[in-house]
C-alpha cells in the first residue's frame, strides 16, 4: 500500500527532525525506503517529486541538509494531509436519543465558569455554582453531565448542593445521565445517584435497587437500603441485610426497619438493642419510636437490673451497659412511655446497690430521663431524690421542683444547700440555677443577649445569695432594677476589668438594662483607662453599649475613638457617635433597644 510507504517515510523524517538533518546524508533506513518510493514515483508525478526529494536529502551535505529535509517534509505533509481516512469499517448502530428537552441557550460567559467550577478543583467553586443556580443559567443541556459528575466531588458541600438543589431542578432530564454514570461498585457519589434516580423514577426501579442492595459497594448498598425502607414488601431483604458484616450497612438497615415499623422489624431492632449491636441500634430505635418496642426494652431493662443485683465483675458491667442502652433508647420519647418508664426509673434509682460510683453516668441519664417524662409523680420523685443524696441528683431535683412548687417554696427548700458555695451539692445547684436562668433569659426578646430572668418565677432572695457567693454571672441574670446592693457589687467588680473582658461588658450591659444612672460614666471610664490597641474588632456588646450612651458623652467618646489603632474599628465607632449626635431627643426617654434600632437604621 502506498499510504503505508508514505507513513514509513513520515516516521523516518520525524526521526531525522529529532536527530538533526545533519545525520541525514546516506541514512541507512531512508536509503532502504528509497526503492519503494521510486517505484511509486513511476505511477504519478507527485510521488516522483517525492522520491526526488528523498534522493536529494540523502546526497545533501551538512549545510544543505536542513533545507532538503524541510522541503521533503513539507511535500510529504501536503500529501499525507490529503490521505486522511474518514471511514471506519464495521457495523454501526444509530445513537438512541433519550428525548431530553433542555435548552442550550446559556451564554458562554455564564456556562463556561459554571462548568469549570463543576469539573475542576480550587476555591470559590461553590459560590460560582450557587450564582449559576440563582440566575437559572445552570439549566442547560451542556451542563447536565458535569452537574451529575460533580456528585463525586471531594468537597462534600458541592455534591450536597448538587444533590439537593441542582439535580432536582433538572428533574427527569437528569435520569439518562445519572443512569449512565451510575456504578454499583462506586463510592458515595454513586449512592447519591441511586437516591436521585429513585427520587425521579420511584418504585419502577425497585428491582434495580434490590440488586444494588445485594451486590453494590458499601456506599451504594447504604443508599439502596435507605430506599428499601419505603417499601414494606422488601422487609425480608432488609432483615437479611441487617445481619451484614459491615457496621454501616447494618446501621442503614436498622434505620430502614425502624421506618417500616412492622412487628417483625421491631423484633429485629429489639434483638439488635439487646445484643452486641446495641450501640448502633440506639438511634434507629429512637427514630422508630414504637411503644411496643419501648415496652419490651423497659421490661428488658428491669430484668437487667435484677440480674445486676446478683451479678459480679464482667457480667455486672454488661448489665449496666444494657440498662444504659435502654435509657438512651427512651431519650426523646419519654412522654410517650411516661408511666412505664417512671416505675422502671424509680426502681433503678432506689436500688441501693446500683447507686455506686461506677454507674454514675447511667444514674445521671436516668435522672435526666425522669425529668423528660413530664409526669408529676416523676418530678416528685426527682425532688425526693435530691434530698437523700449528696448532690448527684440535686440539679434534677431542682429542675423538677421549679415545675412543681412556687418560687418561694423552691427557695426555702434549696437555698440552704448553698452554704458557703463550696460543697459539691452547692456547686451542682448553682450550675442548675445558671442553666435554667440562662434558658429563661434567652427568651427575653427585648434584651437580646443580656436579658434577665422573669421576675415572677424566682424568689427575690436568690440575688442576695449570689452576691454573697460572688456569682457575678448570676447576679447579672437576676438583676431587675438598680438597687444599691446590686449596683454596688457590680460597680466594684468593674474596677479591675479590662476592655475586652466579656464579664465586664456583661456587667455594663446589665447596669444599662437596670438603668443605673452611673452606667455611662462607668463605661466611659473603662474605655478611657483601657489600651486602645486592644480593640481589634467591635463586638456586639460594644456596639450596644456605645449606642446606649447619652448625647452628653459624644465629645469624650470622640476623643477616645480618635485614639483607636485599627481604622475599621475607628470608623465603626465614629459612625455610631455620628448617629448618636443626630439622635432625636425624644428617643432619650425610651429604652435602649429602640435607640439601637434607630441607629442601625441610620447606619445601613
Amino acid at each position, binding site marked *: 500500500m502506498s499510504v503505508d510507504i508514505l507513513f514509513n517515510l513520515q516516521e523516518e523524517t520525524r526521526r531525522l*527532525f529529532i536527530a538533526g*538533518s545533519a545525520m541525514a546524508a546516506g541514512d541507512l533506513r531512508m536509503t532502504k525506503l528509497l526503492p519503494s518510493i521510486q517505484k511509486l514515483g513511476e505511477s504519478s508525478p507527485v510521488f516522483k517529486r517525492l522520491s526526488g526529494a528523498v534522493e536529494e536529502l540523502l546526497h545533501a551535505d551538512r549545510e544543505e541538509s536542513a533545507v532538503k529535509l*524541510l522541503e521533503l517534509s513539507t511535500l510529504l*505533509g501536503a500529501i499525507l494531509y490529503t490521505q486522511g481516512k*474518514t471511514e471506519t469499517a464495521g457495523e*454501526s448502530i*444509530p*445513537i438512541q436519543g433519550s*428525548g431530553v428537552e433542555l435548552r442550550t441557550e446559556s451564554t458562554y*460567559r455564564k456556562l463556561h465558569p459554571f462548568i469549570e467550577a463543576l469539573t475542576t478543583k480550587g476555591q470559590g467553586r461553590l459560590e460560582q455554582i450557587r450564582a449559576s443556580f440563582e440566575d437559572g443559567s445552570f439549566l442547560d443541556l451542556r451542563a447536565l453531565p458535569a452537574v451529575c459528575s460533580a456528585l463525586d466531588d471531594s468537597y462534600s458541600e458541592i455534591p450536597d448542593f448538587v444533590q439537593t438543589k441542582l439535580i432536582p431542578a433538572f428533574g427527569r432530564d437528569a435520569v439518562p445521565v445519572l443512569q449512565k454514570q451510575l456504578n454499583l461498585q462506586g463510592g458515595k457519589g454513586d449512592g447519591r445517584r441511586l437516591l436521585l434516580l429513585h427520587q425521579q423514577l420511584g418504585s419502577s426501579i425497585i428491582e434495580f435497587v434490590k440488586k444494588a442492595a445485594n451486590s453494590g459497594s458499601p456506599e451504594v448498598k447504604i443508599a439502596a437500603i435507605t430506599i428499601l425502607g419505603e417499601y414494606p414488601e422488601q422487609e425480608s431483604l432488609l432483615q437479611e441485610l441487617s445481619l451484614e458484616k459491615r457496621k454501616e450497612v447494618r446501621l442503614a438497615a436498622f434505620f430502614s426497619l425502624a421506618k417500616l415499623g412492622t412487628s417483625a422489624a421491631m423484633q429485629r431492632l429489639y434483638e439488635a438493642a439487646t445484643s452486641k449491636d446495641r450501640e448502633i441500634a440506639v438511634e434507629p430505635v429512637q427514630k422508630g419510636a414504637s411503644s411496643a418496642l419501648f415496652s419490651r426494652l423497659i421490661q428488658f431493662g428491669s430484668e437487667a437490673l435484677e440480674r445486676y443485683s446478683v451479678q459480679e465483675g464482667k457480667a455486672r458491667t454488661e448489665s449496666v451497659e444494657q440498662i444504659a442502652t435502654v435509657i438512651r433508647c427512651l431519650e426523646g420519647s419519654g412522654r410517650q412511655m411516661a408511666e412505664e418508664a417512671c416505675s422502671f426509673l424509680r426502681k433503678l434509682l432506689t436500688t441501693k446497690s446500683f447507686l455506686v460510683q461506677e454507674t454514675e453516668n447511667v444514674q445521671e441519664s436516668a435522672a435526666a430521663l425522669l425529668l423528660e417524662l413530664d409526669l408529676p409523680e416523676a418530678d416528685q420523685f426527682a425532688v425526693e431524690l435530691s434530698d437523700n443524696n449528696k448532690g448527684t441528683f440535686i440539679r434534677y431535683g431542682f429542675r423538677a421542683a421549679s415545675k412543681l412548687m412556687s418560687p418561694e417554696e423552691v427557695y426555702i427548700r434549696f437555698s440552704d444547700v448553698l452554704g458557703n458555695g463550696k460543697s459539691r451539692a452547692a456547686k451542682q445547684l448553682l450550675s442548675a440555677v445558671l442553666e435554667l436562668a440562662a434558658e429563661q433569659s434567652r427568651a427575653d426578646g427585648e434584651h437580646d443577649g443580656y436579658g434577665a430572668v422573669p421576675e415572677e418565677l424566682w424568689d427575690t432572695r436568690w440575688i442576695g445569695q449570689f452576691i454573697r457567693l460572688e456569682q457575678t454571672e448570676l447576679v447579672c441574670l437576676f438583676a431587675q432594677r438598680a438597687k444599691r446592693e446590686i449596683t454596688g457589687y457590680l460597680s466594684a467588680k468593674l474596677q479591675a476589668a479590662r476592655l475586652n473582658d466579656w464579664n465586664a461588658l456583661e456587667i455594663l450591659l446589665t447596669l444599662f438594662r437596670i438603668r443605673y444612672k452611673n452606667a455611662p460614666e462607668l463605661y466611659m471610664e473603662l474605655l478611657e483607662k483601657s489600651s486602645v490597641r486592644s480593640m481589634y474588632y467591635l463586638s456586639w456588646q460594644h456596639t450596644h453599649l456605645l449606642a446606649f450612651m447619652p448625647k452628653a458623652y459624644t465629645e469624650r467618646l470622640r476623643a477616645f475613638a480618635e485614639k483607636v489603632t485599627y481604622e475599621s474599628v475607628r470608623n465603626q465607632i465614629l459612625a455610631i457617635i455620628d448617629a448618636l449626635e443626630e439622635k432625636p431627643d425624644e428617643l432619650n426617654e425610651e429604652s435602649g433597644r429602640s435607640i439601637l434600632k434607630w441607629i442601625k437604621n441610620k447606619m445601613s
Partner: protein
Amino acid sequence: MATITEAYVDSLAPNAGAIKNGRELVKKNSFPLLHETDDGTLLFGECKGSGKDPYRCSVDFATEGNPVFRCSCPSRQFPCKHTLGLLYARALGKAFTTAAIPQEIADKRDKAEKREEKKKDAAAEPDDSAKPKRKVNKSALVKKIAVQLDGLGILEKLVLQLTQSGLGSVDKKTLQMLEEQDKQLGNHYIPGAQAGLRAFVIIMQPEKDRETVYSAAMEQLLALKALTKKGKAYLEQRAADPDSPMDIDTNLEELLGHAWQLAELREHGRVQKDAKLLQLAFMSYTDEARGEFADTGWWIDLNSGHIRVTRHLRPFRAARAMREEDTFQAVVKTEELFIYPGDLNQRVRWENATFREPGATDYAAIKLLAAASFPDVIKQVKNVIKNPLADKNPVMLVAFQSIEQFDEKVILRDASGKQLQLEDFEENGRQTTTLLSLLREEELKNQAALVMFRHHLDDNHLSAQLMSIVTGSRIIRLLY
C-alpha cells in the same frame, strides 16, 4: 425607552465580574438616590463607593438603542459597575423618583447634539476630494519591507539551524537563545512570525514530555519555514515594486502580523453588502504565543452559506479593561460586512448592525445551506489543510442523515452513506459526543451539523468535532 431586563444589562457588561459586582451593589443597597427624568430618557443616581463622596452615575437613553454611560468613578472598565448597578436596580424593580435633569448632563447632551450635527453637515457635503485615497509613503514602505525581510532572514536561519541540529538537541540554553532572538524579531514589524517562533518555544517547554511534542514541534518548524519562504517571496516582490497591491487572496499578510484596518479592507473591495449572519458557535480561548485571549464566534452567512469567523482579541495586558465577547443569539444584519483575507473560514467584522430574533425560516434556510456530500466537504478541507500555512481546524456546516456508533467511535453519515468520524478535541475543552444520546430522536436524523475538522498525522485520519446541530426549530449549541 424600552423596558430594561436583567438579560439586557448582562449583555452590556464588559465581563462576568462586572455583572456580579453590579448586581451586588443593588443587593447591598448601595444606591441612596435613584432618579429618572420625566420623559424617562435618563436614569441617574448616586452610588456609595469606598471614598467619602458617592459616585454620580447616569445612563442616558437619548438616542435609541445606544445608551450613554456616565459615572464619576475612576474605573477603566466601561460601562463601570455603578452604571450597571443603576440599570440592575431598574431591572429589579427598585423605586426611581422623578427629578429634573442635572445641569452637567444637560450640557453634555447639548455638546453631543452639536457634534452629531457637525458630523451630519460633513457627511452632507458632496465633496469627494475631502476623502482622498490614502497615500502611501513609498520610501518608508520600502524601508519597512527591508526590515521585515531582515527579520524573516533571521527566522529562516533559526529554523534551518534547528532542523540541522535536531529537535533532540534543543535544551534550556537553546530555548533561552530562541527567546532572545524572538525579542529581537519584535523590531522587525513581523509580529505574526514572531508569535510563531514563540509558539515553537512554548511547544518545546522543558517540563513537557518530549516524545509527545516532537510532532507538534516539527509541524511548527514546517509552518515557520513556509512562512519565511512565502513571506520573503512576497515582500521581495513588493520591495521591487512598491506599487504592487497587498496580498488579499491568502492570509499571508495576517500571518506576518499585519492588522487589517477596515479602511484597507474597504479599499481592497473586501466588503459584502447587506449581509445577514447568525452565530452557530462561540468559544473563548487563550493564545499563549500571541499573549492574548481570543473570543471566537463561528457564524453562517445566511445568504451564501459561508462559515465566517469573528475573532475579538484581548491582549493579556489590556484584557481587564476590554469588553469580553459572548454568545450571540440574534440574527445580525449589516450593510457592510468586512471580510479579511483567508481560506475556508474568513474572518469578518462589522461596524453597524441591526438585530432580530432568529426563527424557523432561518433554521430551514441554514439546513438548506449545509453541504450535502461528505466527500465534497472532505475534499475541500483536505485541499486547504495541506497548505502548511493554512488554518488546520476549518469549520464547516454539513448535512447529515444519521448519527451512528461503532464500539467507541461516533460518526455522522450523509445521505449517500458516507462517514465522518466524530471526536472530542482536547483543546476545545468539552466533550460534545456524550451529549448526543440525550437529544431527541428526530434531532439526530436529517439535520445540519457545524463541525470543526482536524487531521491526525500520527494515525492518518481526519476527524471532526461536533460543535452545533441545527434543526428546523432550534440551534443546539453543543460546544458553547
